[in-house]
């Protein structure tokens, strides 16, 4: 028990350390990364004082939208506990399907009717909402004070507004089915691309589908693209993210084309599950948990679900580096939480405080089993699988890390990535043509 507790303490401390790495690796939308120095106009701190004054306030109904398909029960429990604590606040809670958060929020933003409290990703979309005065600047809130500094830059707009609090520290990984690995006689985890292909071949020879990747939604960008970009591009040019923001980056290179090329290789060799081009996130997760394939390329955000399998799940770092190439892991932010400007701002800030500094955080974290975003979580209440702890610990040894795609790519490029992967898999484009297409899309986006 004591050992488990100390491991949890270690991962909590690690998340702080990695946060610092992340802070350095870029993905910032603006130059002002220090939230503490952001200009005024921020919301009043909700903090401890809010939690001490639950009653005698006018009744409000908070609209809440959460992209919580993999923690839906926990989300509902959080809302129930919150309304128990604040009986004057009623919650009208909607769940947003995975990968559709920006699409859900954008028309609401245009009509100035954003939910009072919502999930939001770091990156350009949230920054635009903040810069148009639609999201509360959270810089001076207790939630922000309790958030690891390194997780703030991607949630900071170009004008210095902290528009969201990250839902955790995020990294990609491959979950593998220990039973199927054993059945195929695989004893050692692959350390590079060549070894990974050999493992896939061994699995295939044993009649086991090697890998699941959801190829019909943003999951493929979270995993194949982000890992490929980190290894192939950031590994060679650590300033790539900055160059993309400045409009000086060139996607039309062999290194970038190789991101598509690797996925095509897996597809052509029949290492991917049947139906990969039309496979979506939730189906992919179900298929892995049903033992339909030996590995699932996903992220730490799914640790709570994937590690609770009956067959025993292991985790490995995606070996996307060819032999001799530096390994660059993805270290980024999880989808976070934001508060809309409006008459229910104070009540929504109380919910934010409940989610980050109070009971809500532990319900959320325990379900997800992810790496906390908070500075000082109670180690006795945080639930992290030792596998995740050791995985996160390993990340310390890497000098370079890469961000997730949505944290820095222009929205026009973001919108075309999944289709581009599909066009490569179906043979409509070669990886080189795909790289050229991405470059054209990027140039058009930057022209504006």
């Amino acid at each position, binding site marked *: 028990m004591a050992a488990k507790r100390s491991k949890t303490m270690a991962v909590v401390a690690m998340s702080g350390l990695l946060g610092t790495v992340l802070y350095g690796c870029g993905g910032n939308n603006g130059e002002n990364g220090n939230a503490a120095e952001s200009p005024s106009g921020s919301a009043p701190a909700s903090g401890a004082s809010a939690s001490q004054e639950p009653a005698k306030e006018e009744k409000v109904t908070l609209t809440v939208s959460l992209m919580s398909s993999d923690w839906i029960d926990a989300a509902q429990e959080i809302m129930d506990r919150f309304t128990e604590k604040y009986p004057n606040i009623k919650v009208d809670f909607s769940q947003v399907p995975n990968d559709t958060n920006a699409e859900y929020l*954008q028309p609401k933003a245009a009509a100035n009717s954003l939910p009072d409290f919502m999930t939001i990703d770091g990156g350009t979309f949230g920054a635009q909402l903040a810069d148009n005065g639609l999201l509360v600047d959270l810089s001076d809130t207790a939630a922000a004070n309790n958030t690891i500094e390194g997780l703030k830059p991607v949630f900071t707009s170009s004008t210095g507004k902290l528009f969201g609090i990250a839902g955790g520290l995020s990294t990609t990984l491959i979950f593998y089915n220990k039973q199927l690995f054993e059945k195929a006689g695989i004893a050692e985890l692959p350390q590079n691309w060549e070894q990974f292909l050999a493992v896939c071949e061994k699995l295939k020879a044993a009649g086991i589908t090697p890998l699941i990747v959801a190829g019909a939604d943003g999951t493929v960008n979270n995993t194949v693209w982000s890992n490929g970009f980190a290894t192939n591009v950031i590994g060679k040019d650590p300033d790539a993210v900055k160059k993309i923001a400045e409009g000086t980056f060139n996607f039309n290179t062999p290194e970038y084309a190789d991101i598509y090329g690797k996925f095509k290789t897996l597809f052509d060799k029949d290492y991917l599950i049947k139906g990969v081009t*039309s496979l979506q996130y939730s189906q992919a997760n179900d298929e892995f948990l049903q033992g339909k394939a030996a590995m699932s390329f996903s992220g730490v955000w799914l640790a709570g679900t994937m590690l609770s399998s009956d067959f025993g799940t292991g985790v490995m770092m995606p070996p996307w580096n060819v032999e001799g190439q530096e390994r660059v892991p993805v270290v980024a932010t999880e989808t976070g939480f934001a508060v809309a400007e409006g008459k229910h701002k104070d009540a929504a800030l109380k919910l934010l405080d409940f989610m980050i500094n109070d009971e809500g955080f532990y319900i959320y974290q325990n379900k997800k089993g992810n790496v906390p975003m908070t500075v000082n979580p109670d180690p006795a209440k945080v639930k992290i699988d030792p596998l995740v702890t050791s995985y996160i610990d390993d990340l310390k040894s890497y000098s370079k890390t890469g961000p997730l795609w949505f944290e820095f790519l222009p929205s026009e490029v973001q919108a075309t990535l999944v289709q581009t992967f599909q066009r490569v898999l179906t043979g409509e484009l070669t990886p080189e043509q795909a790289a050229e*297409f991405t470059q054209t899309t990027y140039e058009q986006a930057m022209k504006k």
Partner: protein
Amino acid sequence: MTRWYVRHRMTIAGAAFVLPALAVIALFFLYPAIQSFRLSVTDWNGISPDYRFVGLDNFREVIEAPQFKRMLSNTLFLIVLYVPVLNAIALLLAVVIYDVGRLANFYKVVLYLPNILSMVVVGVIWKVIYNPVFGPLAYLFEKLGKPDWVQDWIGQTATVMPALSLSIVWYAVGFYLLIYLGGLSTVPKEIYESAEMDGVGWRRQLLSLTLPMIAQSVTINVVLSIIGILTIFDLPFILTGGGPGFASQTMAISVYIYAFKSMQQGHAMALAVILTVITMIVALALLTALRRKEVTDE
């Protein structure tokens, strides 16, 4: 004043009755349409209150985009394949059900049932059916000893459009069937009786009597199904998302992607305007052509 009122009171009363409907149309259709056209010549991103006039750049860029040709060919595919197939199936089923007697209502309910489902639900159902790993179709082929027949129906360029068409036909056939049944109920029975006395066969009756007599229903169904297919969004969006790549992308899906994924509202509106113009031209041309063929009372 009084004399003026007396002279125009019918006009005034008519206008008063029509006014609420006109107000609703103006508010919810005309105004958004005008706004869409206005925004189609701007670079609005959907959030910012600021935007610039960009002339016809959005139209040019939308037309030059690689998916535009694909969208047109997809739409053409659906019009050429889906509209005739859907109408033929709906008409044949209507004729059979019309003659079936006692169980007619049961069949009508069964065939109309998919239509009461949301298109989103229908999309999810067919997504499961087509799933090559755990879908019932894959299971069926495995059980039949034909595992090679298991395909990623909605993940392959060659099969996605027929697979999509099948799901749309399954969803829509009940609706068109009811319109054909309505048309059939207006055809006098005596015509068939005298045709039978003259020894006219079933097929000849269908082609030479039924079809001309229900030409108005054919017109309605053809026009509605073409408008429906030109503007279809929910089902393909849920089922295929327009993929793989652009292989099943319809114009409406592309409008959505421009608007809400790539934050290019100007492009989305430009494409919406193009879609509106195409739909109007096709619908008017069809209406004109089919009206000429209708049997009238005159």
